[in-house]
């Protein structure tokens, strides 16, 4: 039983290969992009608005609100990163109910890639917001002796981000696969539904944690 989509190679030329992770990622990207394009090409400014536009507005409003509550800043700068993280992970996990679909988030490569994006985005936002020196000073808080621990913490939380998401999604897939082989009736469906809940929560957690890290990096002036 293959639970890692990275191992499903669809096409390979040298070290360049297209596996199921990439294929399903493109599928999710295509769904998000085309769906957004179809909905937003006919946006209505005046009421009444279409239900899909309403759905997108609710999502964007919800993400904006979460960003604002956590960061206490204008959410416009962080919306593309945080919103895309949430939507990508959420839709990737949601499609797990489709037979034959393997969520890209069940691949450690994907979660690592997302974690690396956050790992890079946090200092990028922090430096652009508070400046390089003030950002670097945060690692020496509360004292310079904490510098190694803060640096280790920076890496470890990135690792934790990747492994947490990967573990949750992969475990859900593994559990579903095992249950299908053992009791292929009714019980796997319950676990799939539970997997949907877990996937939604993980999407929320990943996005919120990313925003928390960014918020802590961009609030260096307040810490001073």
């Amino acid at each position, binding site marked *: 039983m293959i639970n890692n989509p*990275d191992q499903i190679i669809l096409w390979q030329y040298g*070290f*360049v*290969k297209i*596996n199921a*992770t*990439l294929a399903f*990622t*493109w599928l999710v*990207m295509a769904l*998000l*992009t085309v769906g*957004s*394009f179809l909905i*937003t090409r006919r*946006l*209505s*400014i*005046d*009421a009444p608005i279409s239900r899909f*536009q309403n759905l*997108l*507005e609710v999502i*964007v*409003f919800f993400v904006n609100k979460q960003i604002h509550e956590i960061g206490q800043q204008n959410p*416009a700068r962080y*919306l*593309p*990163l945080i*919103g*895309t993280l949430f*939507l*990508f992970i959420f839709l990737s996990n949601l499609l797990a109910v489709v037979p034959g679909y393997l969520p*890209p988030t069940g*691949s*450690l*490569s*994907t979660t*690592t*890639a*997302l974690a*690396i*994006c956050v790992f890079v985005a946090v200092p990028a936002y922090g430096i652009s917001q508070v400046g390089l020196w003030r950002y670097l000073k945060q690692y020496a808080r509360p004292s310079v002796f904490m510098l190694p621990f803060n640096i280790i913490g920076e890496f470890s939380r990135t690792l934790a981000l990747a492994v947490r998401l*990967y573990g949750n999604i992969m475990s859900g897939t593994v559990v579903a696969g095992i249950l299908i082989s053992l009791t292929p009736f009714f019980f796997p469906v319950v676990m799939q539904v539970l997997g949907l809940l877990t996937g939604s929560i993980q999407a929320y957690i990943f996005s919120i944690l990313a925003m928390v890290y960014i918020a802590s990096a961009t609030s260096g002036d307040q810490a001073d």
Partner: protein
Amino acid sequence: MEIDWFTTGAQIVNFLILIGLLKKFLYRPIINAMAARERNLVEQRQAVMDQRAQAESLKQQYEASLQGLHREREKVLSEARARAEAEKTERLQHLDDEIRQKKNRFSEQMRQEQQELGTAVGRAIADKALRLGGKILAGLADQTLEQRIVEQFLRQLSNLPGPERAALGQSRTVTVITSFPVDETLRQRIKDRLNNAADAIQFEQDARLICGIALEAGGRSWEWNIERYLAELDADLLTPADHEQLT
């Protein structure tokens, strides 16, 4: 649990591309639409507030105008009432005068008609009375009455004033006119009384004299008859006092 670093790199690229795509096709249009709707709502709210304020202002203006109109109406109505009252009083006064004048004219007309009617009635009554009296007296006339009439006439002649008696005495011809035939005895008495005054005495009879006797001499005439009394009665009946008593 192993990491495929090519896939990781590709996923990083995919994620960055997805950020760009969603930024273009999702976040920007949705944010713009929401901002536009918010602006619209603010503008609409402002427009509603402006319209409400305008409506409130208009309402106050209309109320003020309405109150002014009410006051104007009351003023016009009171003036119209006063004019109507004055007109009514004037017309009533005019009608009163007209009625009074008509009443006076009517009263005068009535009085004249009553007077004329009284006169006509009196005249008719007098005429009837005269005719009736004449008939009665004519019917009653006999020798004794004729004798008394002659004697009465002769007494009057005796009591004539001096100038008239002188004029009668100077007349040569005397004509005695009676309504009844005079017998010889009476003729003789008349002659005796007038003998010393007249040369010739003629006797004539005229039925128009009602129970009377007349004497004409020297262009003058003296008479006594019932007709004179009846004429006096006629005159008495036709006096206004008698008319008022009649009406």
